[in-house]
C-alpha cells in the first residue's frame, strides 16, 4: 500500500503508540510533502519517533490551489494527485476535498480495516483497534458500526 500521509494521522498513531506497527511494513510506502514534514519536526513526540521511523519527504512538482483548505492541506492533495496514491488523514474536510478530485482518502480506522483485508491482522485485533480508536474519540459510533459491518461481511 502506498499513501501520502498527513500529520493528523501520525499524531493519532503516536497517541496510540501504533506508529511502528503501522508505518514499518516493508511492503508499504508512506510519503509526505515538505510542509507536513515541517509539522512533524515541530511536534516533539513525532520528532522523537522520526529518528527511528521513516516517512519519505517528496516535494510537490505542481502546486494546487483548492479553495477552503490550508496550504499544507493543498500540498497533501497535490502530492497524492501527482503520485496517484491514496491519502491517509484524519481531517474531515481534506478527505472530502480529495474525493472531489477522485483521490481515495482513508483515516486510521479505515487503514485498520485495510490491514485486516490484507491479512496483516486478524478480525479480533482489528475490532480491538477500532475499539481503541472509539475510546480515544477518534471514531464516531456511526463510522464504528459501518466499519465493523464491513469487517464481518
Amino acid at each position: 500500500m502506498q499513501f501520502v500521509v498527513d500529520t493528523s494521522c501520525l499524531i493519532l498513531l503516536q497517541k496510540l503508540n501504533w506508529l511502528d506497527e503501522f508505518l514499518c511494513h516493508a511492503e508499504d510506502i508512506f510519503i509526505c510533502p515538505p510542509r507536513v514534514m515541517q509539522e512533524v519536526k515541530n511536534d516533539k513526540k513525532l520528532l522523537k519517533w522520526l529518528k527511528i521511523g521513516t516517512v519519505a519527504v517528496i516535494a510537490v512538482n505542481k502546486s494546487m490551489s483548492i479553495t477552503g483548505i490550508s496550504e499544507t492541506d493543498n500540498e497533501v492533495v497535490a502530492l497524492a494527485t501527482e503520485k496517484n496514491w491514496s491519502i491517509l488523514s484524519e481531517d474531515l474536510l481534506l478527505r472530502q476535498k480529495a474525493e472531489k478530485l477522485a483521490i481515495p482518502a482513508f483515516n486510521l480506522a479505515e487503514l485498520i480495516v485495510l490491514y485486516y483485508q490484507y491479512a496483516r491482522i486478524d478480525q479480533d485485533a482489528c475490532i480491538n483497534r477500532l475499539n481503541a480508536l472509539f475510546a480515544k474519540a477518534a471514531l464516531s459510533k456511526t463510522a464504528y458500526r459501518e466499519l465493523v459491518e464491513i469487517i464481518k461481511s
Partner: protein
Amino acid sequence: MKITLSLSDQLVTELDELLSFNGHDDRNRLIQKLLRESVAGQKQRHVAQLYCDGKKTLRQCAEILGVDLRKMMDILRRLNIPLDGGRFPHNKLALKLLRQGAKTQSLHSSD
C-alpha cells in the same frame, strides 16, 4: 477598558461564594477569570462546530484558536467530538475500496 455590568443579586451572591471557596477577595479578577475561560470555551465550541460542518480543516481550526494540530485534536477530544465529526463516510472512494475488499483494491502502484 472598563465595562459596567448589571448582575442579579443571586449571581453576585454566587460569585461571592466562589470567591470564598477560592480564598480570594477580588471580585473583579474573578469575573475576568470566569469570562476569559468562558470566551475561550465558546470559541473552541464554535471552531469545533465549523470542523464538524466540514467548513474548516483541522489546521484551519488550529490556526483560529492559535494552537498546533496536536492541541486541536486534544480540544476536539475534550469536547467529545470524534475526528470524523460524527459523519460517515467522508470519502466515498475509500469506502468503495473497503467494501470491495483488499483483493480488488489498487493501492499498489504496480496494479
